[in-house]
């Protein structure tokens, strides 16, 4: 694969597109999808319209349950369970595929429409090697592993790339791994014969070594690379024709994986999914999705399960690949910022309907539908300021009060002592089957000021949750101390510990897992009061009512069970439970990560209001810098167990000191987009 060539071509793709006749690749009209349930049928998608043109990125944005994935899956004929299309039409390149039989769908899947699914952890079969699973996609679509299959669009790009010397089929033969050493050797001789500069030869060779990948780079790319390095056209043609004669299946598998950005692909192909990280699995899935060179790729939240920096790298790569192959992408995401950054066109879905669609910037800057407006306002990736408390948000009448409050706030913060102090914290874990210890947390020191929010940011595996668990005294540190109100947490006796537990409460990531499904909401919230022997039945009931009020849930919630509540409601319950004992500190471990943006926004506001009213301190663990900006006063950036940066939120966002923090900030999708909200 030739980077330079493709980068150049991708910049031209826009122009080429506009030259071609604007015939839509995918046209979905008035789509209606229903699921049959025991109580009748449920309409998941109604009157859904969207169009994708060749080579275009179109994003469908919406919260979970909005019907965005369902719409996309009906295009592939892969609706789950009892789902079926009950109305409207789906046209692929002018052909109506709405009522295709399963055999007909088989013939277009992979070959014409590819899929990159959402969750990399569950979408690869654990018992087959990665290479085998890529091979399945090649074999199922009868792909010729010897040569590249290029779309018309991509062929035209190739033609312009080679000044019209593109010869089609044979020019698309791949380098084979068997011929690669000879090819490199001959290329070296050819380059050496045209220049005496040893350094230039090495430079050219380094370029070749990097760019020429067996099973991925083609004859014409090799020829163009040689010509670019100064080799005469005839000689370049001779070398390319002699030594680029097609790849084997294994070469092609490795080539596809390399294209998807997987290093050392030939070895990796022989590994099993469990040996891959989430990011690597997603790359394998991208390789699978593009294996048969489809005209349209459906990317269903392809990076939502990944860390932001990985997310950025993978999307950059996917964009570069689809641009060079001329593949159109239907990009499904819940993140408006991400959609606006990647796609030319945005379709917003809400409760099964398309409520708005248009060019990305248009939708972002002039949202028409109220839902879109809320979405734009709530998108964490687009927010640029810390949330201000309810009192401060209050109307004009409350302005005085809010001023007063703000003044008090400021005073409090300025004069506040530290409530939690972490000193030189180290945690080592024993690795299975290995002698040396793994340092999950390596000499971390920071402090949380009373009444403020301190956020710990980092990618998965950075040790941020381990720190939180040590602060909560759920894990013993290998060395270092955690001070709460100046006292060492890990020297507490039983009674002191109980008292500490009362004042420092956790809220965990998964609102589904942290509430006992057998406990009513009342019992869940009452439990901490009972454990600490506070009040009698009557006062406890009053307290539960008060707490539900505090988290803006109706009193009737008390008698319900967790499975009857939504994710956002459950997280409110978890917060109410944490608040039950009037704690000083709440440790939120990814407390909003599992929630939809709008719900996330509500919960963040709730946390913030509670802080303003009760003077709470938060230790906020998150991987999402955008959330940090909304909630935190201080930020601790962690990477591989080490503290990378510790400063106030403004300092971190405005003048990050380390490259790593800058990378994290750059990775926030939509960070550079301008909004035009009233």
């Amino acid at each position, binding site marked *: 694969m030739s980077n330079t060539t493709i980068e150049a071509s991708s910049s031209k793709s826009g122009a080429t597109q506009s030259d071609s006749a604007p015939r839509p690749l995918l046209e979905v009209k008035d789509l209606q999808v229903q699921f049959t349930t025991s109580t009748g049928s449920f309409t998941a998608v109604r009157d859904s319209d969207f169009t994708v043109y060749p080579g275009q990125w179109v994003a469908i944005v919406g919260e979970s349950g909005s019907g965005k994935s369902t719409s996309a899956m009906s295009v592939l004929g892969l609706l789950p369970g009892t789902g079926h299309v009950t109305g409207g039409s789906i046209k692929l390149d002018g052909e109506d595929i709405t009522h295709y039989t399963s055999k007909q769908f088989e013939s277009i899947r*992979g070959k014409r429409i590819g899929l990159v699914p959402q969750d990399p952890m569950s979408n690869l079969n654990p018992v087959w090697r990665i290479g085998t699973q890529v091979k*399945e996609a090649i074999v199922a679509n009868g792909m010729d592993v010897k040569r590249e299959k290029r779309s018309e669009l991509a062929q035209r790009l190739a033609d312009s790339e080679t000044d019209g010397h593109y010869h089609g089929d044979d020019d698309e033969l791949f380098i084979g791994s068997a011929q690669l050493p000879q090819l490199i050797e001959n290329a070296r001789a050819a380059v050496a014969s045209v220049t005496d500069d040893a350094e230039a030869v090495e430079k050219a060779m380094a370029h070749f070594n990097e760019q020429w990948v067996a099973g991925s780079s083609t004859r014409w790319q090799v020829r163009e690379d040689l010509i670019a390095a100064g080799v005469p056209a005839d000689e370049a043609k001779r070398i390319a024709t002699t030594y680029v004669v097609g790849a084997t299946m294994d070469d092609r598998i490795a080539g596809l994986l390399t294209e998807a950005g997987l290093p050392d692909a030939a070895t990796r192909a022989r590994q099993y999914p469990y040996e891959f990280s989430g990011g690597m699995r997603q790359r394998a899935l991208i390789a699978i999705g593009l294996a048969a060179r489809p005209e349209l790729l459906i990317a269903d939240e392809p990076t939502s399960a990944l860390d932001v920096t990985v997310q950025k790298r993978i999307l950059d790569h996917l964009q570069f690949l689809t641009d060079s192959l001329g593949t159109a992408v239907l990009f499904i995401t819940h993140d408006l910022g991400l959609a606006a950054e990647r796609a030319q066109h945005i379709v917003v879905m809400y409760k099964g309907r398309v409520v708005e669609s248009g060019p990305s910037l248009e939708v972002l800057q002039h949202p028409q539908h109220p839902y879109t407006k809320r979405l734009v306002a709530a998108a964490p990736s687009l927010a640029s300021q810390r949330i201000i408390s309810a009192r401060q948000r209050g109307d004009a009448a409350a302005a005085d009060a809010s001023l007063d409050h703000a003044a008090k706030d400021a005073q409090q913060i300025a004069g506040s002592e530290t409530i939690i102090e972490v000193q030189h914290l180290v945690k080592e874990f024993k690795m299975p089957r290995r002698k040396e210890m793994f340092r999950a947390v390596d000499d971390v020191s920071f402090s949380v000021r009373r009444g403020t929010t301190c956020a710990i940011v980092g990618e998965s595996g950075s040790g941020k949750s381990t720190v939180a668990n040590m602060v909560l005294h759920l894990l013993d540190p290998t060395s270092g101390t955690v001070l709460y109100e100046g006292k060492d947490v890990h020297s507490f006796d039983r009674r002191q510990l109980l008292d500490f537990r009362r004042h420092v409460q956790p809220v965990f990531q998964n609102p589904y897992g942290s509430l006992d499904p057998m406990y009513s909401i009342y019992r869940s919230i009452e439990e901490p009061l009972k454990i600490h022997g506070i009040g009698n039945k009557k006062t406890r009931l009053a307290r539960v009512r008060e707490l539900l009020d505090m988290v803006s849930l109706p009193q009737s919630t008390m008698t319900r069970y967790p499975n009857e509540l939504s994710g956002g409601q459950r997280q409110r319950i978890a917060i109410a439970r944490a608040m039950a004992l009037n704690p000083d500190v709440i440790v939120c471990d990814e407390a909003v990560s599992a929630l939809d943006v709008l719900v996330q926004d509500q919960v963040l506001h709730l946390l913030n209001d509670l802080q303003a009213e009760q003077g709470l301190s938060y230790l906020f663990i998150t991987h999402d810098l955008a959330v940090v900006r909304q909630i935190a006063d201080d930020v601790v950036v962690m990477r591989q167990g080490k503290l990378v940066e510790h400063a106030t939120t403004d300092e971190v966002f405005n003048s990050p000191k380390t490259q790593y923090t800058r990378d994290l900030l750059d990775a926030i999708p939509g960070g550079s987009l301008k909004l035009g909200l009233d």
Partner: protein
Amino acid sequence: MGKYVLRRILQMIPVVLGTTLLIYALVFALPGDPVKAMFGEKPVNDAVAAQIRSEYNLDKPFIVQYLLFLKNALTLNFGNTFAGRPVIDVIAGAFPVTIKLALMAFVFEGLFGVIFGIISGLKKGTWYDSVILIVSLLLISVPTFVTGFVGQYLFGVKWQILPVTAGRNPGFLDLLMPACVLGSVSMAYIIRLTRTEVASNKTADYVRTARAKGMSNRAVTMRHILRNSLIPVVTYLGADLGSLMGGAMITERIFNIQGIGNTLWQAILRGEGTLTVSIVTLLVLVFVVCNLIVDLLYAVLDPRIRYE
């Protein structure tokens, strides 16, 4: 891998010691005098009885008896039965029949259990599935001896297709009905296990991904749904082979098969400690080895499991 196998084999030692001691204690605690039982209704001469007691170590304390048994067992000398036959001969005579029966039952339950389970799982919710489910439920809830007698009556007496009992040196046809009866309950469990696995794998994300690749329904079913569904089934089958070897007591009695189960039954009735303990020890060994094989097989089938 080698280390793991070695560790597992070493783990067998306490298992075998523990079970033999337990069985020995149980046999020892059985009411009744084995010597008297030998003579049945006839009166016993005290001197003869004492001699027999000393010959079979019955006059020594329990723990000494056990240790003597262990010592002899190490040299593969399991002593004699009360009738004077070497225990090892009795086992050698009975075991091949049991192995034959168990293997036939194993093939029967594995083959039909998996096939019906797959069909049921793939066609979940259809009448086909319902029929298979009801039949499997019936097989699970009806005791083996009922299935056995019904089989004997229908196939043996009424239609006279298969022999009613097996007798000595049974052939394939003699054992066909006993094997089906023996394997029927496990087959029902395998049907249900396979069905659940297939039904849940059918909607797995990686199956959808496989379909999205453009693979044919057949290929997806074979390579993704079945391959993954059969891993727990194979584990169950392996563990079941062990219990088939020892658990044929009822079936062997119904069909009068002179196998290990029948022999064990008689040994317990007669209070023959040595024979009982020897057979049970053997069964424990068979069971432990089967389990080891299952665990190793599991690693072959599921790459996520690696033993070091």
